[in-house]
């Protein structure tokens, strides 16, 4: 390339430093956790008679340790280094983003550091690609990451594994940055696997509890299924397109005809990977269990960043999906079904984190609907706003759980489930800041106007309707079903999902903060607001949740209320996904303003209707604490048990595997074949030969002479006869 990139020579050259900083943090904190007098992780709940029920609560063995008055030896150093490396990274990436805005330049800024796999024609480099899409992601990761790191200081300081926690968290940021900055699929895959590893490590952070360790394993194993898809996609890319870097793949993909089978296969395998990482049907099952990890982890990894990697990957591979309407429609279908499915489960969950987990799955479904329908900007936009308000919701729930736990301990109360909403209620009096901030997030996720979620969700639904009305996608067919029918259907389902979202979020807020407090008498006076180090990040996130939508204001809004630039994010991402967006949209007349406004009205009606429904129908006063609550019946029971999916998997998948393993693999192959026939068998054969040999070794010279004589006789006989 002769043309000098406008970013070369600027601070953007330092993009490598953004992941290197957290890596240093990982090394230092990791060293702390290794060298210090490290208390054995969480205390075993069964050995502690004062906390009989803490096994059910999952969270906060930390406080039990506090009870014994332990803090990690390197707690102060970790407090400074852990968040500082991320904050520095955020400042650096903000400076880079500023340079990018100033200098512009549509082409991606690719930095090659070294060659990774020089194998014949396969050349894979360690290379970073800085463009508009990865810039957005880097800002989200370092920005939200900084806030969550700061929050973690307050949340995890008492934990004996404090430096280990920050080491994992720093390492996660490293891999996440590698994921979004990678300039080719293999580098992305490194980050992809790395975040999976960190997710596993952090879900099972309190690993001495079997449930937590199992949840980590579940996440890891389910993700393997998706990663297999990613790998196959890469193999197919290499064998059919002969390239693995984005520029090369994009150039080659454009030469394929629309609807090409190869590209569709690649896209579907890629999407399998995305479905695993981003918890879509049918691989969503790991995410709710992943809530076993510390709550800030849920906020960072399982809400704001890692789980959105799938959305990012599809947006990144838009040049592939643009060639395959079938794959794009599949993404829409899976995303849409997941969205409504998860939303319905969230309606009846009692664990506050489970509500948020299913809500995350549901919102991820929205994002996939967006990117599947070719509205890549809308999908990424929702990714951004979702990162704001879902991080806020998780951190808020963390603050609640933290308060509940401390109250149980300080009040020496019976240790109920600190995450069950039936044990909460009325917290707005004791935790006013958290209450206010979480209401902002709730309004945002429900899609109430001017909050961030409203704009992003509305854009996805609006784009979906527009595409259904007439586009390349609508003209395509998915197993004989016309695309427009699918898009219309999922527009309708999207509206219903939005309605359900509003209901379950309001329900969560009502049960948690409103009504009477249902916790233990002894614990109640000890409930208090979280320290500033935790409410501070909440406040920042609350502001972002409120105004974050302004990065991409729709035209109809700015026309009436000229407060910001129209569709700023859309223009920003235009160089990356613009081509694919137009390819999937096709030549379509712009939607009339009246149609657009009525769509907006429908969305607002759903949001407000949901909130109102929940407000009117749900009576927090009627709730009893979890221990006394009656079992649910009928539909409610099905929803509460998550459609029995886990039980179904246990029955159809896990149990047969266990049975086959136990009978065939263990008893048959391992014990019978390997141990019996091969190991012991070869031993007996050796023993038998040795027995014969020992008989031959009589130690008598005469016998040896006989043996020699007969041998000579035989040899000479062979020579004679031969």
């Amino acid at each position, binding site marked *: 390339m002769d043309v000098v990139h406008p970013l070369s020579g600027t601070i953007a050259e330092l993009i490598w430093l953004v992941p290197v900083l957290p890596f240093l943090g990982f090394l230092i904190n990791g060293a702390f956790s290794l060298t210090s007098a490290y208390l054995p992780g969480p205390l075993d709940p069964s050995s502690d008679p004062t906390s009989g029920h803490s096994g059910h609560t999952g969270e906060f063995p930390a406080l039990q340790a506090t009870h014994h008055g332990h803090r990690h030896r390197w707690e102060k150093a970790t407090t400074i280094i852990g968040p500082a490396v991320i904050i520095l990274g955020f400042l650096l990436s903000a400076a880079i983003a500023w340079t990018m805005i100033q200098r512009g330049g549509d082409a991606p800024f690719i930095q090659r550091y070294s060659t990774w796999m020089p194998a014949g024609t396969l050349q894979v480099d360690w290379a970073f690609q800085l463009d508009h899409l990865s810039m957005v992601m880097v800002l989200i990761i370092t920005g939200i990451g900084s806030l969550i790191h700061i929050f973690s200081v307050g949340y995890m300081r008492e934990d004996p594994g404090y430096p280990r926690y920050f080491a994992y968290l720093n390492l996660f940021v490293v891999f996440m940055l590698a994921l979004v900055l990678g300039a080719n699929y293999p580098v992305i895959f490194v980050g992809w696997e790395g975040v999976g590893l960190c997710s596993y490590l952090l879900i099972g952070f309190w690993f001495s509890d079997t449930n937590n360790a199992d949840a980590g394993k579940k996440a890891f194993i389910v993700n393997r299924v998706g990663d297999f898809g990613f790998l196959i996609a890469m193999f197919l890319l290499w064998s059919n397109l002969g390239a693995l870097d984005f520029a090369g793949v994009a150039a080659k993909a454009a030469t394929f005809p629309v609807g090409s089978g190869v590209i569709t296969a690649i896209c579907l395998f890629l999407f399998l990977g995305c479905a695993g990482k981003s918890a879509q049907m049918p691989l969503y099952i790991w995410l709710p269990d992943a809530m076993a990890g510390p709550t800030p982890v849920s906020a960072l990894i399982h809400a704001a960043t890692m789980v959105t990697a799938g959305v990012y990957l599809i947006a990144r591979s838009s040049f592939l999906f643009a060639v395959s309407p079938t794959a794009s429609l599949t993404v829409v279908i899976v995303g849409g079904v997941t969205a409504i499915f998860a939303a319905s489960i969230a309606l009846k969950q009692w664990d506050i984190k489970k509500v948020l987990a299913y809500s995350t799955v549901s919102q991820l479904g929205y994002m996939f609907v967006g990117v599947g329908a070719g509205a890549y900007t809308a999908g990424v936009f929702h990714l951004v706003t979702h990162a704001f308000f879902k991080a806020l919701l998780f951190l808020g729930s963390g603050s609640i759980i933290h308060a509940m736990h401390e109250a149980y301990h300080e009040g020496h109360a019976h240790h109920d489930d600190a995450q069950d909403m039936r044990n909460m209620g009325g917290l707005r009096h004791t935790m006013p800041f958290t209450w206010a901030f979480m209401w902002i997030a709730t309004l945002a996720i429900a899609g109430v106007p001017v909050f961030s979620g409203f704009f992003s969700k509305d854009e996805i639904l609006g784009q979906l309707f527009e595409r259904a009305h007439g586009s390349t996608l609508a003209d395509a067919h998915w197993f004989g079903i016309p695309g427009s029918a699918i898009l219309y259907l999922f527009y309708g389902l999207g509206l219903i999902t939005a309605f359900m979202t509003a209901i379950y979020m309001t329900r969560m807020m009502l049960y948690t903060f409103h009504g009477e407090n249902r916790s233990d008498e002894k614990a109640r006076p000890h409930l208090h607001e979280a320290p500033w180090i935790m409410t501070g990040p909440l406040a920042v996130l609350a502001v972002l949740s409120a105004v974050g939508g302004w990065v991409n204001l729709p035209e109809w809004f700015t026309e009436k209320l000229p407060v910001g630039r129209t569709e700023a994010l859309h223009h920003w991402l235009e160089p990356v996904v613009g081509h694919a967006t137009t390819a999937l949209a096709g030549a379509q007349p712009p939607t009339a303003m009246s149609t657009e406004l009525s769509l907006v009205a429908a969305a607002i009606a759903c949001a407000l209707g949901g909130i109102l429904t929940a407000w009117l129908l749900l009576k927090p006063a009627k709730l009893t604490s979890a221990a006394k609550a009656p079992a649910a019946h009928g539909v409610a029971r099905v929803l509460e048990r998550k459609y029995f999916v886990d039980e179904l998997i246990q029955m159809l998948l896990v149990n047969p595997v266990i049975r086959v393993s136990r009978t065939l693999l263990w008893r048959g192959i391992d014990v019978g074949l390997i141990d019996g026939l091969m190991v012991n068998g070869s031993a007996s054969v050796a023993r038998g030969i040795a027995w014969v040999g*020992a*008989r031959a*070794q*009589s*130690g*008598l*010279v*005469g016998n040896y*002479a*006989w043996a020699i*004589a007969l041998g*000579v006789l035989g040899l000479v006989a062979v020579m004679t006869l031969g």
Partner: protein
Amino acid sequence: MIGPALFFSACLFAIGVMGVLTRRNALILFMCVELMLNAVNLSFVALSKLHGVGGQVFVIFVMTVAAAEAAVGLAIVIAVFRHFRTVDLGALRLLRG
């Protein structure tokens, strides 16, 4: 005369083998081995009429080795006799498994 010489050689060799297989006395066994070596020597000499004097040179080497073997072997026999008070190989069962 090569044919008859080889015939006698084969006979002597077979007799040597028979001696090794039938006797237990270590001394006689050694003598049997010497007989076998002599049988081979006869073949060497006979065939040297066909193939040149190399065969005779080999006979000289065989004799040297036989002399060395006899020296060491008889020394061993003496050592064995001192230890076991016999040269019967049936008595030497220390190597027996």
